[in-house]
């Protein structure tokens, strides 16, 4: 039974070989993941951070802040909107094409997924407060930090 050829490997080392293959694959996966994550993870910004330390153009990021009152405008095609997201320190113009979430209104918090193109943020997706049970967690952090600004804005 044990005389079967194993491709040049001594049969008695088979278990070791399996172990080495498995470890090599897992370590490879780990390194690959670490490399890809450092390149592909999308960071969360508030407008002030975005001004201070702008990310490279076109890189996927998320932007959180308040939709400024009176800034929301719909373009002629009826589906593209422009608005300004602010955090009290800085203001970023945002463009979004699509159907906005139900609770997306001026003066409330929003998290936009997208990227910077020029000086504007192009959003692919908007996350607004869905209902009492679902608040994007970053938005919870953000509103806490900027509670005063929000109160001032909404009054």
């Amino acid at each position, binding site marked *: *039974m*044990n005389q*079967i*050829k*194993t*491709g040049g*490997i001594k*049969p008695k080392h*088979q*278990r070791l070989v*399996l172990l080495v*293959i*498995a470890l090599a*694959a*897992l370590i*490879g*996966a*780990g390194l*690959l*993941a*670490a490399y*890809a*994550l450092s390149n*592909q*993870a*999308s*960071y*969360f910004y508030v407008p002030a951070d975005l001004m201070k330390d702008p990310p490279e153009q076109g890189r*996927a990021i*998320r932007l959180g802040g308040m939709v400024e009152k009176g800034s929301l405008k*719909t373009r002629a*095609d*009826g*589906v593209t909107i422009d608005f300004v997201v602010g955090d009290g320190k800085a203001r970023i113009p945002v463009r979004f*094409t*699509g*159907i*906005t979430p*139900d*609770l997306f209104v001026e003066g409330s918090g929003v998290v936009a997924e997208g990227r910077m193109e020029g000086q504007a943020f192009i959003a692919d*997706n908007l996350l607004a407060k*869905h*209902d*009492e*049970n*679902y608040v*994007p*967690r*970053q938005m919870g*952090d953000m509103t806490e930090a900027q509670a005063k600004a929000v109160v001032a804005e909404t009054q």
Partner: protein
Amino acid sequence: MIAELGLAVLWMAAALAVLQLFAGVVALRPGGAAMTGLVRPLAIMQGVLVAISFLALIDLFLETDLTVKLVAANSHSMKPFIFKLAGTWGNHEGSMLLWVTIMAMSGGIVALVEKRLREDTLIATLAGQAFVSLGFYAFLLLSSNPFERLAEPAPEGAGLNPLLQDIGLAFHPPTLYIGYVGLSVAFSFAIGALVTRDVGPAFARAMRPWVLGAWIFLTIGITAGSYWAYYTLGWGGWWFWDPVENASLMPWLAATALLHSASVLASRNALRAWTVMLGVIAFSMSMVGTFLVRSGILTSVHAFAVDPERGSFILALLAVYIGGALALFGIRASTVTEGERFSLFSREASLVFNNVMLCGTLAIVLLGTLYPLMTEAFGAKVSVGPPYFNPVSAIFVIPMMLAMFVGPLLRWRHDKPGRITAVVAVPVLLTAVVLLAVVLLAPDIRILPTLGIAVGAGLALASLLPLRGRNLRRTPLSVYGMVVAHFGIGVALLGAASESAFSTERLAAMNVGDTQQVGPITVKLVNISPVAGPNWTALDATVTATYEGAAAVTLHPQARTFSSPPGERTESALYTRWNGQLYAVLGNEGEDGRWQMRFWWKPFVPLLWLGGLLVALGGFLALLGRVAHDVRRLRAGGKIAYRKARLEQIK
């Protein structure tokens, strides 16, 4: 009264679990044989009691007993029957009771039917099962009692989150939970076999139906969840790499690996320590999944009713069970003797490759899911999405699918490449031709969908090859199971790749009477009118869709407003053809009175879920084949024993 009964019965079941653990441990010690007979009946009784407790909770929800806190917080007397029923497990406490119920009932079933395993290994397994369920009993009884009464009855229930008021809720969570918990049985078997040093084919054969069953339910749960998210969230996507989705994918990947390695152990007595290790990993992934869903530690669209304190409880359970199991594995791994050997070109070797690639994919998904937690420790908030998961997991998945062309055709132990070259050439050639055709005809498609279409087509063909030259009537059901499941993977891959390669989208503001073109389909907005349902009102759009001159079809996408609790939900409308699906969403009304409408034409997207169901069907056929085989063997064994006894008598 019902609530008190349910709670009392639950406490009794927990007490039985303590007894079951105690009796099992004593029975395994020298001189404890007297306890041996106790373990099986205890496990069965425990299963029955928990089932009664769960039925009590269902009854409370159906009656909408508002003196019970959980019912008042999650149900509403006006809710349709099916959602009252599904609301039982649509919340934290109820879903944990469902978890314990499934766990205890599967323990009972193991005790009732398992006959092949060595008795001491079975007792160790049942003791392990009792030990694992005790943690969940503690969790349920100490921190999330589902039967808690309110001091004063609530006037009306708070209702169920509108996003959850969907037929999907009735099926998706229970199927996933059965899958998660089924893996706890595999875990207990692995622990039992380690404790009694009985890691061998008998252990793998006893464990295999449970792994297979859990895997079938996970497959159905993931497929159904994907379809549910697709039509209910209104984003037109079927997989978001959301932490909670990953939480269901990771146990599936581990269970798939375990399924294949258990089959090597059962048929060839190889990969012993590896299979035990995978048994531990698979259940760890279930618990990680539960932890991610229940703790709300990661931002997720699924984050309903989360509670960080409960998260830490589950994390503690995770540490105890998985840490304990790994320690046991570390101590006992050296006593697991090495199994049969095999050559580098054999069925076993191809399954090892499959296992390694699945574990690599699992590592990629796990690291990507937990990465935001790790960076948060350093103050950076990140999210990880498709730009990471798609290409990086493809590095492992595509080679694995290519290996699936070859693996099922190989012989056990040792094979010669020359024997199958000609056969494998056919699907390889098909893959190459499809690849070339896609690159030439549609050059602007990205690389992953292109590869997906080519490999999917090749795999769908290659998966049928193991039937070549067989007598189709005499082929065992388990072989059909494998063929159907592998075929399903190919089909699902084709659907997914085609969706991401060829989808067209049309977003427009439309007046009533306007038409739009999306892909081959002309859509016309005919009318918008208000409609009302049992607990919601909606704006209902009447849209006609015409496919290249075929007869028009009417669709009704809606924007629903729920009253209890208040909430909104877009209700997409689907028109399915053999070659694709039209997806329509009604948006908001603009200031100028035009309506935002969103349409997608997604060619061949239904293949994705069809493929998922085929995979589950394949698993079911294999399970049926195995169980039928076991039953036949048991019967034959019974006959032989009977004849022997007769012979003795005559003598």
